[in-house]
């Protein structure tokens, strides 16, 4: 920054105080020049004039934070959230919390077992894992926006939703190929909302003794209601809420009925309990689950797109010795690769470098050619899922349930591989 430039911009504003573009330039110039207090004053003027877009609001929040005005920073965050913006907000929120000396943690609902084997009263514990936010999920911007609009905002703008008598909570089903970030998205959703997160897994529910599986499932909902508002995440929904039509025998059916009862909150109240679920096989989920009031919002989580793959690759390469890796090139060459596939790719490439080091005694950094070599013969693990999804789109999409999948299947990426 030059003093001249700031002075010039100020002079221009004296001549034309309503020139918001110049004021924004001035604010940015002041911020980059290490004068956050003055920058904040300019951002405040712009904000009052309603001239800040979502990026401007986040920048204003950063200026406020740097100026030590946490109240203003929070105001900017709230304003940015209200616009439906996704990117950058969670990072800013985390910075605010960290600055305030708070370690932002994911809250996990846990219930222990006493010495006599009887379950102890549920307790809300803090997990040692740091909170996951949307910033930690590479790509999937459209999905994040959909979740933000349908899930997060009702919790953050309770006033607005109360005004229109629209309650928060309900059921959202995330589906897509394996390894594409559904579970991470669910955790990130809880992180964005700042809500306790309870993970229900089939292994924790199933029990060989009659009636115990249903009881376990009921307990999970009881705990979630107790700590409402909270996010109850049901992983592998198709394993719990399987299509009863396909089930051979009668033993498993009560489990589906129990989940239906819990979602319908018979004899209970699910207000402010957000039930998130994920599945690779939405077609194996009982139809009754998808009716209004249960999992009525169904969100497709596709394999990562090229920018997302770049981010994921960069994430996996971080901390490893590497040299000018052309991440964009590798991302272009890995259509339909899931996050898990990309991790495997990087690990294969690292193995090649280690083999090389053992053979030649030369510890060279990872290069683009190693990734390309590792890529030879690798196929995305999503192909089988896509083949099945194609069949469902072709034969069982009368209600338009798989329209998002159909749109994805005609995309260039999906057509690159013959599945």
């Amino acid at each position: 920054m030059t003093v001249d430039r700031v002075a010039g911009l100020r002079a221009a504003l004296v001549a034309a105080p309503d020139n918001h573009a110049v004021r924004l330039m001035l604010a940015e110039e002041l911020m980059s020049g290490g004068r956050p207090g003055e920058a904040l004053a300019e951002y405040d003027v712009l904000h009052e004039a309603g001239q800040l877009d979502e990026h401007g609001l986040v920048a204003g929040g950063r200026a406020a934070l740097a100026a030590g005005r946490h109240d203003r920073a929070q105001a900017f965050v709230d304003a940015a959230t209200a616009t439906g913006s996704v990117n950058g907000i969670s990072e800013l929120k985390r910075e605010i919390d960290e600055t305030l000396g708070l370690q932002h943690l994911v809250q996990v609902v846990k219930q222990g077992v006493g010495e006599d084997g009887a379950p102890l009263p549920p307790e809300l514990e803090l997990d040692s894992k740091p909170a996951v936010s949307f910033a930690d999920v590479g790509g999937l911007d459209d999905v994040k926006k959909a979740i933000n609009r349908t899930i997060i905002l009702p919790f953050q703008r309770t006033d607005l939703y109360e005004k229109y008598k629209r309650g928060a909570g309900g059921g959202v089903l995330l589906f897509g190929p394996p390894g594409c970030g559904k579970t991470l998205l669910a955790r990130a959703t809880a992180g964005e909302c700042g809500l306790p997160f309870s993970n229900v897994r089939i292994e924790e529910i199933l029990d060989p003794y009659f009636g115990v599986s249903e009881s376990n499932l009921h307990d999970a909902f009881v705990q979630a209601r107790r700590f409402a508002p909270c996010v109850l995440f049901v992983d592998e929904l198709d394993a719990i809420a399987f299509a009863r039509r396909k089930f051979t025998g009668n033993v498993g059916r009560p489990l589906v009925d129990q989940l239906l009862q819990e979602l319908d909150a018979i004899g209970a109240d699910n207000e402010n309990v957000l039930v998130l679920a994920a599945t690779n096989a939405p077609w194996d989920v009982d139809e009754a689950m998808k009716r209004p009031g249960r999992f009525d919002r169904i969100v497709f989580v596709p394999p990562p797109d090229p920018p997302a793959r770049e981010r994921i690759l960069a994430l996996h390469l971080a901390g490893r010795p590497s040299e000018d890796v052309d991440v964009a090139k590798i991302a272009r060459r890995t259509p339909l690769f899931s996050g898990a596939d990309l991790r495997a790719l990087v690990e294969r490439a690292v193995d090649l470098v280690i083999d090389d080091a053992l053979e030649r005694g030369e510890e060279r950094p990872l290069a683009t050619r190693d990734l390309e070599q590792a890529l030879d013969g690798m196929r995305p693990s999503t192909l089988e899922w896509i083949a099945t999804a194609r069949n469902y789109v072709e034969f069982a999409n009368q209600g338009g349930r798989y329209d998002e999948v159909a749109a994805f299947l005609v995309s260039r990426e999906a057509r690159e591989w013959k599945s």
Partner: protein
Amino acid sequence: MDAAAGPLVRARHDLLRGRPDRALVALDQVTGAELEDEEFWLLRAAALHNAGDPKAAVEAAQKGLEHDPADFGLLDVLALAQLGSGRKKDARATIESALLLYPESADLHAHHALILASCAERPFRLTSYKKARAAADEAIRLEPDSDLALRVRAKIAAISGDSRAQAYTEELLARDPESESAHVLSGAVRANRGDVHAGLEHFLEAARLDPSDPHLARLGRRSRALQRWYAQPVLFLERVTRGHVRIGWVVIVLATRAAHLAVLSALAFAFWIYMWVIHIHVERRARKAPR
């Protein structure tokens, strides 16, 4: 809420809900003493059989039988897996030895019927459909409401050309209109009786009910291709042995040519080409999912 389910519980659950692939993943986590449990081998054999790997299923069932040679489930799965891997005689021997131990099992009789029906198929008719029908009837006598027994009876009637096949398949559909196997059987029976359009509709319905089954999806695509206007003139082939007609048609071409019926010969030749073109087109459409 503690972690309640071990891998065996999970595997059984996945198998019952029709996900043998997930059951196999769960079974891969089994360690220690459970590996000696015959239930592990039974679940593994059943999962492998349902996942379409009958040879591995035979091996798993045989390992399980080393621990308990009289296990009902293992003998049953072994017989079906042997049938799936083409060892019809072994399958028959296995199921008949199981029936000596469990003569009152409707499921075993139904599977016996299925194996006998397979043995009765051409070209090596190892037995007659009559015996297969008798075994299916015995299964129904023991358990009149058994879905399996009723389905096997309908299947045997369909493949043997029994005039009661349509009634049997209609009964299956009345019991469960969303049974894809009932729709497949019904489609085959309708097509064989000359109602090809209705048959194709049943095949399409089966594909709609379970598109995750690649065989049903292929059947659905094939049916859809055959419903096109350009395939209508060759639909009659669906009720006869299609390959025989296409090859036999050459005889007509040659005969008309030998008889100096040039126009007729040219028409027969053109139709022969047309039949092949449609056949190749339909098979390609059936194999390949549309993009």
